[in-house]
């Protein structure tokens, strides 16, 4: 697509051919009122406020595509009259309740009513009763709804659940007489407004989606709000603290909205999480899992002194997880260099080895894709990741690409996922044999690789591969259809393969895919800062004699979890620092709440490192790993009007000379009938998400309705889980309506349930026997 010039209100603007005029205007700082358009989603033409004149003809700027030399006028007497009439219509029968409404102060209806100067009304029509709905995390007040359909659009085009739709409102028919007395667009809008409200797409009584809450974020009025937040605070009282998602590696921009707890208690409290909904979707755990802070009364100097003594005398290993900042990882690395501690972090070390193997064949230490390249491509493949729960934002990017770019794609996973399969009819979901990921990598190389340049030993028979993976033979035909007119490709790979028995080889195959196929690869870091830790720390495989654990269990444990561990540490919403996101971006996060105890930097200082603040290390992050020497305070954390992600900085990739050879495909181990997957349910990622008051739940064995029927079990029954080595677990079984097939999954977020014995070598699939307790 080529660059062109268009004129908006006399200003020359550079645009990409076919881009929406509204977006060009926004990028150039020209204001056009718009209520219903959500960036990166399809225009619905519900509000008609974005009316402009294109070459003397009326057009709606949110769906008018830029053409060379076109001239746009955003304001004229006629347009302004029409816009005013539209706002007048929106205000008909709109309850006068700004005084209590949660949106007041940031409400587009309020803003545009004032902007268009609506101070009186000419129209009237009898009102229809519109009851409010309580949809779990979400509260819908239909009488405030202006049926802009932003919620419907974002749910379909961005999130992929498509859980909302417009339903008949049962309102009075518009009397014909208004037609002549009302402006054209205003009348058309009114006609539609009068007919619909928002309902649950499945027709069920209550909303049953993955509860990302994105609809509440895009709703321009107070119709959709978080149930927990309802009537708790006015928008203007909340102080927005910019931060990054602490729960998963998308590290999306979010704001902690903070205010004093109550009249009696002046301590700051997080009331909700808000986002830049036009540019960065948030998943539900980020939106609702904000209050995981660690509260201590003061500095526990006894425990601190003990920790120092231990570190000086006995500790030889520091074990930690990847829910830490880059700076903390750097402190740990410095401690290692100074005192020779072993650093053990299983998840980061697995990822580190995977990326290392990948770089041997790809020639770069980092993969080339990111979520932006995914959402801009038109053919997306994913394997090795339960997208919906492992990395919802990668799922959103995939769904966005499928919906907005007329895209198609393949989703490979042994656990069937109705939500992901529902993204698009052009997404082929392949429920494959457990462990077939290596064959899938070979398949992609053989289907998409450049046969001339590729080493000959990689060539394999496609049909043979299909049967190894467990796919139908008509796949090739279907694929051919899907590939019509596709020219940009992305591949998402997730954590199933990092501990795959053939992980190293899969990584090397991915490197070759990166080089010999048009795919841009994304290798999703499994936890928030797995990528950062794997770049900064030299990790060791084995623990030594005496371990200091940081957020993992050790002989002495530092913990950011409320009431856990021997010495309390600040949680990620109480810390400033940076994360390295899956987009290979170093993004800043700020402290929303204060912490009265000690932090890792205090320990390091007591051991002889010198830094006043943890963020003093931001500029010292290793430049030979691609970090920049930049002060924390100089890192921006915003999106600008064009949607440009002005957050932190991008890591610089390192290049190596690379090799071509990989191991031949090895046989897929037969896992038999009874397999259990290790995954967390929607909205859970770790013990931290489970600490949030809205998300807190007890873990269970999650299974599909099909599985329950197959095993003759009911939701809530107790089951016995055993493996060949004799490890046992008694646990409740819980119906997860959003999975299908016969593979149930065990979670890791609940600290009361230890599933590690079942997944000893870290591989996410295990052969386990499940028996109902009553059926013995």
């Amino acid at each position, binding site marked *: 697509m080529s660059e062109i010039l268009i004129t908006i209100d006399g200003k020359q603007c550079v645009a990409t051919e076919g881009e929406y005029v509204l977006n060009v205007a926004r990028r150039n700082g020209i204001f056009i009122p718009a209520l219903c358009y959500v960036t990166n989603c399809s225009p619905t033409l519900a509000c008609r406020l974005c009316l402009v004149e294109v070459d003397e003809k009326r057009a709606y700027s949110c769906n008018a595509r830029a053409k060379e030399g076109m001239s746009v006028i955003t304001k004229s007497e006629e347009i302004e009259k029409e816009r005013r009439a539209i706002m007048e219509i929106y205000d008909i029968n709109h309850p006068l309740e700004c*005084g209590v409404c949660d949106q007041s102060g940031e409400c587009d209806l309020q803003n545009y009513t004032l902007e268009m100067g609506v101070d009186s009304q000419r129209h009237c029509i009898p009102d229809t009763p519109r009851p409010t709905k309580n949809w779990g995390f979400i509260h819908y007040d239909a009488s405030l709804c202006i049926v802009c359909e932003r919620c419907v659009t974002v749910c379909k085009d961005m999130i992929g659940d498509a859980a909302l739709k417009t339903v008949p409102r049962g309102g009075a028919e518009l009397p014909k007489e208004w037609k002549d007395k009302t402006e054209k667009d205003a009348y058309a809008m009114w006609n539609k407004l009068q007919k619909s409200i928002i309902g649950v797409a499945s027709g069920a009584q209550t909303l049953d989606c993955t509860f990302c809450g994105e609809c509440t974020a895009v709703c321009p009025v107070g119709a959709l709000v978080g149930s927990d937040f309802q009537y708790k605070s006015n928008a203007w*009282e909340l102080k927005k603290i910019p931060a990054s998602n602490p729960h998963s590696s998308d590290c999306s921009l979010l704001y902690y909205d903070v205010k004093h707890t109550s009249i*009696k208690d002046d301590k700051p409290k997080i009331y909700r999480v808000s986002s830049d909904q036009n540019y960065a979707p948030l998943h539900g755990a980020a939106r609702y899992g904000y209050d995981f802070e660690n509260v201590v009364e003061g500095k526990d100097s006894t425990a601190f002194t003990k920790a120092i003594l231990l570190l000086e005398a006995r500790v030889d290993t520091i074990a930690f997880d990847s829910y830490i900042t880059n700076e903390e990882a750097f402190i740990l690395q410095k401690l290692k260099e100074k005192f020779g501690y072993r650093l053990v972090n299983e998840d980061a070390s697995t990822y580190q080895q995977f990326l290392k193997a990948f770089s041997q064949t790809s020639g770069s230490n980092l993969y080339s894709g990111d979520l932006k390249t995914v959402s801009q491509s038109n053919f997306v493949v994913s394997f090795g990741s339960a997208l919906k729960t492992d990395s919802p934002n990668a799922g959103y990017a995939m769904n966005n690409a499928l919906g907005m770019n007329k895209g198609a794609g393949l989703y490979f996973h042994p656990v069937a996922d109705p939500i992901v399969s529902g993204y698009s009819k052009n997404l082929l979901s392949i429920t494959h044999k457990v462990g077939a990921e290596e064959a899938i990598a070979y398949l992609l190389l053989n289907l998409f690789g450049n046969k001339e340049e590729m080493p000959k030993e990689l060539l394999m028979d496609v049909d043979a591969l299909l049967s190894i993976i467990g796919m139908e033979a008509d796949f090739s035909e279907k694929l051919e259809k899907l590939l019509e007119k596709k020219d940009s490709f992305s591949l998402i790979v997730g954590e199933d393969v990092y501990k795959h028995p053939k992980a190293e080889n899969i990584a090397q195959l991915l490197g070759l895919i990166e080089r010999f196929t048009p795919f841009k690869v994304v290798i999703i870091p499994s936890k928030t800062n797995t990528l950062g830790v794997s770049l900064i720390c030299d990790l060791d495989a084995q623990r030594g004699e005496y371990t200091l654990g940081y957020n993992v269990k050790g002989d002495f444990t530092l913990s950011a979890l409320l009431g856990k561990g021997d010495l309390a540490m600040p949680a990620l919403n109480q810390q400033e620092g940076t994360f390295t996101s899956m987009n290979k971006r170093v993004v800043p996060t700020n402290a929303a709440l204060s912490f009265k105890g000690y932090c890792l930097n205090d320990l390091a200082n007591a051991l002889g490192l010198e830094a006043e603040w943890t963020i003093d290390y931001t500029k010292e992050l290793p430049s030979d790993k691609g970090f920049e020497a930049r002060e924390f305070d100089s890192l921006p954390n915003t999106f600008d009007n064009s949607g440009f992600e002005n957050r932190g900085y991008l890591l610089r990739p390192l290049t190596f000379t690379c090799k071509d050879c990989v191991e031949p495909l090895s046989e897929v181990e037969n896992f038999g009938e009874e397999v259990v997957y290790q995954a967390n349910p929607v909205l859970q990622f770790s013990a931290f998400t489970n600490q949030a008051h809205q998300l807190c739940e007890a873990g269970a064995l999650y299974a599909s309705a099909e599985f329950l029927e197959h095993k003759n079990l009911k939701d809530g029954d107790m089951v016995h889980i055993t493996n060949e080595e004799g490890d046992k677990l008694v646990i409740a079984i819980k119906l997860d309506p959003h999975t299908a097939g016969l593979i149930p999954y065990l979670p890791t977020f609940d600290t009361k349930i230890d599933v590690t014995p079942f997944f000893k070598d870290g591989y996410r699939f295990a052969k386990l026997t499940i028996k109902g307790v009553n059926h013995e």
Partner: protein
Amino acid sequence: MELRDFQNRNINPGYIFFEGETKPTNGWESFKRVFKRSIKGELFVGLWIVFREMIRFDIHTVQYPAEKLEMSPRYRAIHKLLRLFESGSERCIGCGLCEKICISKCIRMDTHVDEKSRKVVSEYTINFGRCIFCGYCAEVCPELAIVHGNEYENASEQRAHFGLKEDMLTPLDEFKAKKQQEFPGFGALSDHANETVKQTPLAY
């Protein structure tokens, strides 16, 4: 004016300098000055008036506390929270406008949603240590819920004794006894309000 102008410390052009009166140099001059400043003709005018009124016994002083003045409705004393005349429910809807407009930032309120899905104000406070009785809160209130009372006798051990919701809200018994008065002062609708608003057509 720019910053540069402010930084110019040369004050000469715009100022008129006053030299001051000449200081007495000896004891006699000092004595003359003290005498001139102390004894003036007007002194006796004042003394005469006091004496005259005293012998007439025509006293204007309000005999407080036996006697109290009627305050004007525009008098701005400690706040009151009013109830709706029809139902007796609290008028305050918790919109937070008073909290927002208050220039001393001394209003705070806690709100939440109740079982009937309504917004309730569970607590409302004014910190009278900071309130400057400007009346903005009463003026901005869309419900005429917070108003200035005219109770000026505010003696107590603590200012906080007046600042809680329970102190300001019309007590129910008083309300039932029809003792709550509509507030005619700051922020109340003007008498000709009907003429100044445009009416919205109604369909029913």
